């Protein structure tokens, strides 16, 4: 698994967009981690380039930077480690990495 946190930024790819995360009212993790998550509003909920849905507990996971396939993220509400992949439909998805 490629962990982009261990790679220099921009090595052969376009730089990633950065995001400032604000709290959205998600209250299921300790306060210092709340901005990394938000509630998923169902099938019509459009995800930003820095967001993926946790397949285990259906919470939206947010990152301070644009996500790309191979990235690793954590879902604290259900304690899962996930890897970002591109689905057959071209969307970013998260898969559980046990």
């Amino acid at each position: 698994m490629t962990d982009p946190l261990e790679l220099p930024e921009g090595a052969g790819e376009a730089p990633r967009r950065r995001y400032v995360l604000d709290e959205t009212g998600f209250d299921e993790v300790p306060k210092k981690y709340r901005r990394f998550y938000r509630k998923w509003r169902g099938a019509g909920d459009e995800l930003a380039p820095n967001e993926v849905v946790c397949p285990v507990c259906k919470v939206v996971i947010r990152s301070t930077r644009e996500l790309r396939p191979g990235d690793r993220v954590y879902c604290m509400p259900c304690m899962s480690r996930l890897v970002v992949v591109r689905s057959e439909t071209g969307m970013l998805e998260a898969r559980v990495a046990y």
Partner: protein
Amino acid sequence: MRTRPGASTADVHALEHEQFLEEVHSFEFWFNAVEGYLSGLTWGHRPDTVEVPLANGDRESLITVLCNYCVGETAALEGASGLIAIAPNRLAKVFLATQVADEGRHLEVFHHRLRDLGVADPEAEVERRASRSLLLFRRRLLELVAGKDWEAAIFAQNVILEALEFAVFHSHAQDADPVTAEVLRNVIKDERRHIGFGENELGRRLAGSPHIRARLGQTKKEMDHLVLDALEETARLIGLARDEKDRLCRLYLESVARLGFA
């Protein structure tokens, strides 16, 4: 917080995996998480949430459904507390201790809701109305715990039972009266941790010891029809449309499928 070089110390996704596991399995994490959504609640809901009158038939159905939720929560309370003794490591033991606290609270708030609805003796009512399938499930789960079968018991409790509860509570909360809906939404917040613990614990174990797959497959075969029967019964009582019931079945089946049990 130990992080990777160059990462912001406030970035949760930059935690080392071991550090992440240590953090999320701790009482410290649990306390600060539940404090966020339970603070200020009385018996699982805001004290000022308005109670709406229910028609007699709806009230009766809700009482039966809540009685079955109590059976599920009792099974998980007894199961989780028994599993602490056979948990393979400190993190799993501490996590299960937090789950015991969660399950005890769930049982308590559902009992209290039964009293709100005019049930004078909730324990007797649960006894009278409990689903046979759920009672069988509970008995089998406790046999697995007593037999010290860590993987099968975690599979039955934190994957099968919790996945069923997660799906059903979520769906029920959409159309329930305001007080019941709020109680359910706050219970669901705890259930996320429980299903995640089960799936991740078993995912790691299956990766390291593939031979346990056959045993878990047998457990699934044995338990599947019990949970699906219970789902059918609850769906009827809360008046779920067929497509919503099918969606719940799919949600349940997806969670076991991610572990390779189609």
